[in-house]
């Protein structure tokens, strides 16, 4: 079993009422801070796991895409707390990387370009599969497709929650109801020891 502590702190923050309830150690107020912590994550994965260097860099790239999405789609428009939660735990069972925000969420972001999206589950499916950008007319929106492919290729796990929808990605892609209502987005990458 992977350590649940970091995950629980992230859920408490992005599902709770208090926008200030975020431990300082896990808070990235801006992209600069987030970028610096990506370097720290890479260093920790290299020193504390047996992952190959190429896999460590793929994890860093995927975490970078997820975290930067939060900034890209909420800049100047954060509902209450700007910035993201970014933490990880590494132990004998593997590694878990957690990112969360209290932003607009996937559905509200994508409805700006695709108003017919009717619920959070549909929004997650569109975000991970369709060629669409929440910041149209800018041509972008390839980050989560890259993440989905990377997770599959590395045979690891990603749980992505937004609103009341939860996507679980490994070799398959499953969408269902989340246990908690997440205000923005919550992403958890899990690398179990026996998978590497």
């Amino acid at each position, binding site marked *: 079993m992977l350590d649940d502590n970091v995950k629980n702190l992230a859920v408490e923050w992005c599902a709770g009422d208090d926008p200030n309830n975020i431990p300082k150690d896990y808070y990235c107020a801006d*992209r600069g801070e987030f*970028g610096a912590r*990506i*370097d720290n994550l*890479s260093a920790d994965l290299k020193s504390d796991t047996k992952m190959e260097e*190429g*896999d460590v*860099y*793929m994890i*860093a*790239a995927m975490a*970078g*895409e997820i975290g*930067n999405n939060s*900034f*890209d789609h909420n800049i100047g428009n954060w509902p209450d707390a700007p910035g993201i939660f970014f933490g990880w735990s590494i132990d004998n069972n593997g590694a878990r990387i957690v990112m969360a925000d209290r932003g607009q969420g996937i559905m509200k972001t994508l409805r700006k370009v695709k108003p017919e999206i009717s619920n959070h589950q549909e929004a997650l499916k569109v975000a991970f599969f369709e*060629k669409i950008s929440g910041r149209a007319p800018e*041509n*972008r*929106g*390839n*980050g989560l*497709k*890259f993440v989905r*492919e*990377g997770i599959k*290729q590395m045979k690891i796990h990603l749980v992505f929650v937004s609103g009341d929808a939860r996507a679980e990605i490994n070799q398959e892609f499953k969408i269902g109801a989340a246990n908690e209502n997440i205000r923005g987005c919550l992403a958890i990458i899990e690398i179990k020891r026996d998978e590497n």
Partner: protein
Amino acid sequence: MKIFAAVWQLLKLKEMKIEIKKFGEMLISRPAGREAYLALSAYLTKGVDRQELLEIDFDGVKVLAPSWADEVITKLAQEFPNIKLLNTQNSTVQATLKTLREYSDLKI
């Protein structure tokens, strides 16, 4: 005469190399990519003949994410029809190029 003209064209074809590692080893966000593209447009590719062969070298790059690359590689490919990619063995470079080809119409 046609042969001489073709040889002359070949001799005229110059090369230019952009070393991506000069922008950093961890290339992740769109704003950073946009800044890199603006800088190279001002200092490296300004005034360069669009028919020149442009070599993009990924040697030394540790992390290349599609957001950064979409702002640089995709835009360079739209400007320069003759591009050669060098040292693309890194797993993030491979995965990012695949994503851009599939979702950003990158034609390299």
